[in-house]
């Protein structure tokens, strides 16, 4: 991992509340090369918020703080909102969970894909359309011309997610954040969507952050896995060595996974230890 794509040091996201601040992400640090990094954790562990904070898409009144947040040579912290906008979609993009909700229901999918192109490439209508059709083909859509004119409610979940990927990759970003990209899809199309995403990420030499609650999926798909709990990173490990994970939280997650062909009356419940949080009060450095 010679060239580091993304550097995150001591990232925190805080939401002010009536009874004190709520810290959704606490002192998260990691760096990413042109590799596939998985972030796993249960609901509310701050994994999605981390992804959104990197794109600076935390809604008011949430606050993002960090010691370092940079993409290549660009310091994302000092960038103006305008500069940030130029970067979203162009250098970092994000795929969301459910294409049913993450595509504008009253605009044709083709126009939504072309829109990204027009925004970043200042392209003509015809050029953007041509690029969108090409992109539809790249995500293995057989009849791009027909699909271009369809509305989101007319396409299936798997096709919708491929359209979402097309919309996010058309301007050629270096980093893709995929936030639970397959959890809203049927099991049968999950792997298909993942492999298309994988293929594009490899071909283009991009970095990928795959956010998921699904340990199996992340360990099978990613090079490294980052385990989060309560806004903090518990453990980082190579996905091949997940079985050797040390932290009790990761071990607990692994133990709670059902396995095919193995009968168990009850899956062990995940035991959470409040001490984990004090344990790592100091920001944890991870290797690059």
């Amino acid at each position, binding site marked *: 991992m010679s060239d580091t794509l993304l550097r995150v040091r001591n990232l925190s996201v805080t939401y002010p509340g009536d009874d004190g601040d709520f810290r959704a992400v606490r002192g998260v640090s990691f760096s990413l090369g042109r590799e596939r990094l998985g972030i796993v954790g249960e609901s509310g562990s701050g994994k999605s918020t981390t992804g*959104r904070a990197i*794109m600076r*898409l935390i809604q008011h009144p949430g606050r993002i703080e960090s010691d370092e947040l940079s993409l290549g040579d660009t310091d994302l912290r000092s960038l103006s909102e305008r500069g940030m*906008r*130029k*970067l*979203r*979609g*162009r250098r970092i*993009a*994000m795929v*969301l*969970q*459910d294409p049913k*909700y*993450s*595509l*504008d*229901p*009253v*605009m*044709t999918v083709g126009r939504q894909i072309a*829109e*990204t192109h027009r*925004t*970043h490439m200042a392209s003509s209508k015809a050029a953007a359309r041509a690029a969108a059709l090409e992109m539809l083909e790249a995500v293995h859509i057989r009849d791009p011309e027909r699909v271009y004119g369809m*509305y989101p*409610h*007319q396409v299936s979940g798997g096709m919708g997610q491929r359209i*979402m990927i097309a*919309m*996010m990759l058309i*301007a050629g970003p270096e980093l893709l954040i995929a936030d639970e990209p397959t959890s809203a899809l049927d099991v049968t199309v999950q792997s298909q969507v993942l492999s298309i995403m994988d293929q594009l990420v490899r071909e283009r030499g991009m970095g990928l952050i795959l956010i998921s609650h699904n340990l199996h999926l992340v360990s099978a798909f990613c090079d490294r896995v980052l385990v989060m709990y309560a806004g903090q990173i518990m453990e980082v490990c190579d996905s091949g060595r997940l079985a050797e994970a040390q932290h009790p939280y990761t071990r607990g997650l692994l133990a709670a996974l059902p396995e095919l062909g193995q009968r168990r009356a009850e899956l062990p419940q995940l035991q959470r230890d409040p001490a984990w949080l004090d344990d790592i009060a100091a920001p944890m450095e991870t290797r690059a």
Partner: protein
Amino acid sequence: MSAATTATPAARGRVRRFAGPVRRVAGVVFSVLLTFLGLTCVTFVIGRVMPIDPVLAIVGDKASAETYAQVRAEIGLDLPIPVQYWRYLMKVLHGEFGTSVITSHPVLDDLLHVFPATLELSVLALIIGVVVGVPLGVFAATHRDRWQDQVIRFVSLLGYSMPVFWLGLVGLLLFYAKLGWVEGPGRLDVSYDDIVPTITGLITVDSLIAGEVEVFWNAFWHLVLPASLLGYLSLAYVARMTRSFMLAQLNQEYVLATLAKGLSPWRVVWVHALGNVWVQLVTVIALTFGSLLEGAVLTETVFAWPGLGLYMKNSLFNADLNAVLGGTILVGVVYIGLNMLSDLVYPLVDPRARDRW
């Protein structure tokens, strides 16, 4: 939506099974007919329970019992109720609403004469309400809980809670009497009366057709104040609804996705989110237009505007039952028409509705 769409779940079920434009149109026609039947039932019953004796209104209280009985039989009040209703329905369908006691014209002629005045007023009011109200609502939503939002909400609340007649009088006092910016009550200065031939009944349109620019401007300056006033009332409602629809849209996932694509907040709000807000606004605007026709009653009274509202008010105060019921049916028919129209416009703004055709 109101009666026109809720009335016929059965018709809708049929439509779904035999999907096709023909079935769909049949469903709409069926629901319209059903609503219309309900409307005439209501007006018929109102006509019978009103503490006004229609016979007495015609013959006067000095007439003999014989004359009374004779007139009563003439207008069919001695027949059984269902027969009376049937005769009433047939008449209504032929546009016979009887004769107005005060104007002694057929009610239909009166209505055709006064309705364009109201239409002119409420169309301009609606345009003001939408053109100003929608952007205000969007702006309030994007500045939620900041001072801009507070100001817009206060202004809308004012429009909600101020009595129309008071606003009208103050408006006349200020803009007509004191400042002289607009013309006073009525549709035209007396000196301009009867210059322009009536084609549509909308003076601003007729004067332009006739090429009478001076008449147009006079009519326009008469129209501006009452239309702005009514427009303000509808604006208040439209802005509030737009604000809440917009807030709901801004929480949707696709808004996050469009931001992640790198679009400007301006484009996200005014193209993507507003495109979805229109879907919901269609119904609100149609209903606003309907309520403008009702709201016109007080406004027209204050501004001596010879429209449907003033006509209804005068008829009501003079126990002119035929005119009142005729006017009620007209308003009801307009409502039904608006409902139908919004059903037809729906697919234009919502692709999901297009597929259901």
